[in-house]
């Protein structure tokens, strides 16, 4: 009877142990744990990341668990942060990745370098940093081994956010999730931005077509000389001082558009292509 009563607790502890199993120094041979595990919440992340903590908090940071592993003179720091949701975890990865390097297929996306690795899976953002290696040492193999071991033990989505597929792929240089004020505009609360060889595109999803229409109206009011454009359900284009030629449209509950182009007409033409890809 007592064992039955304790069963939920045992299961809970087992689940917690499994969930934390990703903090393991044995994913690559020879590495040993150094010191105790660390844990931070939004309240005390400043202790660990100093001013950089703000960069986590805007992505809905909930908590971080970490561990240090040693091999000879090298110390590998592993930090696994739980973000607000999977999209925000991807956003954290996209904000921190090197835009000059390709994205590897680890979780929703990752990057492995000689002395560091980053990836996001589910609502988790994972950072590996070899903090004490000499500048010349190449730990790519270990980084891959650790990333693979951690990735296998983290639950959650392994596919990048669907909206990223809607961006035209030609001349695309990078994509990222912006957690607030997309394009520096408060009305565009959270969304995706794609950078191209020339210009950038964005996608923001509102709760309903009505709220999207309201936001579009407010945005249009910001731009002197805006004129209507034939894109999506409704659209406008304008030439602006800081975002260049722009075209912003609404399709259902989605707001999207192109900016930073020489002329608004060019932005409208590209926006039409983007609108065709949005379901």
């Amino acid at each position, binding site marked *: 009877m007592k064992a039955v009563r304790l069963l939920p607790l045992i299961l809970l502890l087992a689940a917690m142990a499994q969930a934390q199993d990703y903090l393991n120094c044995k994913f690559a041979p020879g590495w040993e744990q150094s010191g105790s595990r660390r844990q931070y919440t*939004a*309240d*005390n*992340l*400043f*202790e660990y990341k*100093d*001013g*950089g*903590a*703000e*960069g986590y*908090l*805007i992505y809905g940071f909930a908590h971080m668990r970490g561990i240090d592993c040693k091999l000879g003179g090298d110390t590998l720091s592993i930090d696994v942060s739980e973000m607000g949701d999977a999209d925000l975890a991807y956003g954290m990865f996209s*904000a*921190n*990745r*090197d*835009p000059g390097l390709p994205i590897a297929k680890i979780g929703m996306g990752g990057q492995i370098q000689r002395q560091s690795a*980053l990836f996001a899976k589910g609502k988790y953002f994972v950072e590996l940093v070899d903090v004490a290696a000499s*500048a010349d040492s190449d730990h790519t193999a270990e980084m891959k081994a650790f990333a693979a071991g951690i990735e296998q033990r983290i639950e959650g989505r392994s596919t990048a956010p669907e909206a990223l597929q809607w961006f035209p792929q030609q001349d695309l240089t990078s994509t990222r999730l*912006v*957690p*607030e*004020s*997309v*394009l*520096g*505009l*408060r009305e565009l609360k959270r969304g995706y*931005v794609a950078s191209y060889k020339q210009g950038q595109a964005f996608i923001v999803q509102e709760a309903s077509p009505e709220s999207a229409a309201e936001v579009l109206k407010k945005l249009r*009011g*910001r*731009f*002197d*000389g805006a004129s209507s454009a034939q894109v999506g359900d409704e659209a406008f284009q*304008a*030439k*602006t*001082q*800081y*975002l260049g030629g722009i075209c912003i449209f609404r399709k259902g509950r989605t707001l999207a558009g192109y900016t930073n182009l020489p002329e608004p007409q060019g932005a409208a033409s590209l926006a039409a292509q983007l609108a065709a890809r949005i379901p």
Partner: protein
Amino acid sequence: MKQKTSCRDFLSAGMMIPVAGMSSKLGLWQPSGESASSAGSSPVKLDYRTLGRTGLKVTTMGFGCMITSDPSVITRAADLGINYFDTARGYQHGNNERMVAAALGARRKQVVLSTKSAAPDKDALLKELETSLRELNTDYVDIWYLHAKGSPAEVRDDMIEAQQLAKKQGKIRFAGVSTHGGQQQLLPWMAQKGVFDVVLAGYNFSMDSSMDQALQAAAKSGMGVVAMKVMAGGFRGPKPGDPVQDKLKQKGALLAALKWVINKPYVTTTIPSITDMDQLDEDMQSMSQPFSSSDNKLLAEHLEQIRPLYCRMCGKCDGACQKGLPVADMLRCLTYADGYRQFALARERFLELPPEKVAVRCGDCAECTVKCPHGVQVPERMARAQELFA
């Protein structure tokens, strides 16, 4: 009912101030060729101070670039006349420096640009500086900070050598240290050391008066004082749903917090984190509006909410504890932990107390003899300190 001006009245009045020259629509979204400041009915007012011994004239409101969502916000700030921009090598694994470089473009040499490195030794620091220069697309940075130091021991001689060497090589103009905690120890040490030109310190209205004195002394020694965490994020981290944070987010409250810092003559400039155009517009008002009694009231309301936690170090509780505990010192330890996020430092300071004081447990007293005139809940706070550190 009528004789008293409410905060809401003040805020409404504040929103009517004619700042069309910097308003989002008139200032920002003009067709190319029209400058932001010429478009409106009144120009943006810029307020300058000299950054200590550097002699640099900087706007009292600078720009913290770390969480800015789009480079256009930084570009516009530079066009509006803001001339101090701050980033760090570590922000977003270097992406922030790239974004700042792209945003400033040809404006780079018209502004004061600072970055930071948290590298652990001289060689690593100098290597990171080279990376910063490359990513920022510049030959030099105006101020190069040793990033996030919490005590004199963390600022090693070889780090200072790195700064001096970089100065000689013309890669940096001035040397600084950024600090989030342990400022009461670090600032006097920096002032005495005499090799630092600028200090970047967390400072806001919720901090106790010892910080005022430490910063005044720093400024008096010739260092330029740059304030960060001016919106009180340094006292309590942003936490969704937290009523204190929610209150601070109400219209005008953040501006009041910024004006409070700018109102201090020993602070040269500030680097609020700015995410979008609207916040830039609001923060710009800090240079054209004086810190008013209404601002004071607004911040006092905010402080009222943290009053049970917040020791002003007035000394009125000295000798009041029947067990002889140094109440203010113990509460200060708690402030290190809760306010400045320096748990290790807090515990270290706590354990410096005599063992017989460390052993006292406030819960053992039937009644507390300490009554704080400012409303700090002394028994609860002391018990928390003992629970955390003893």
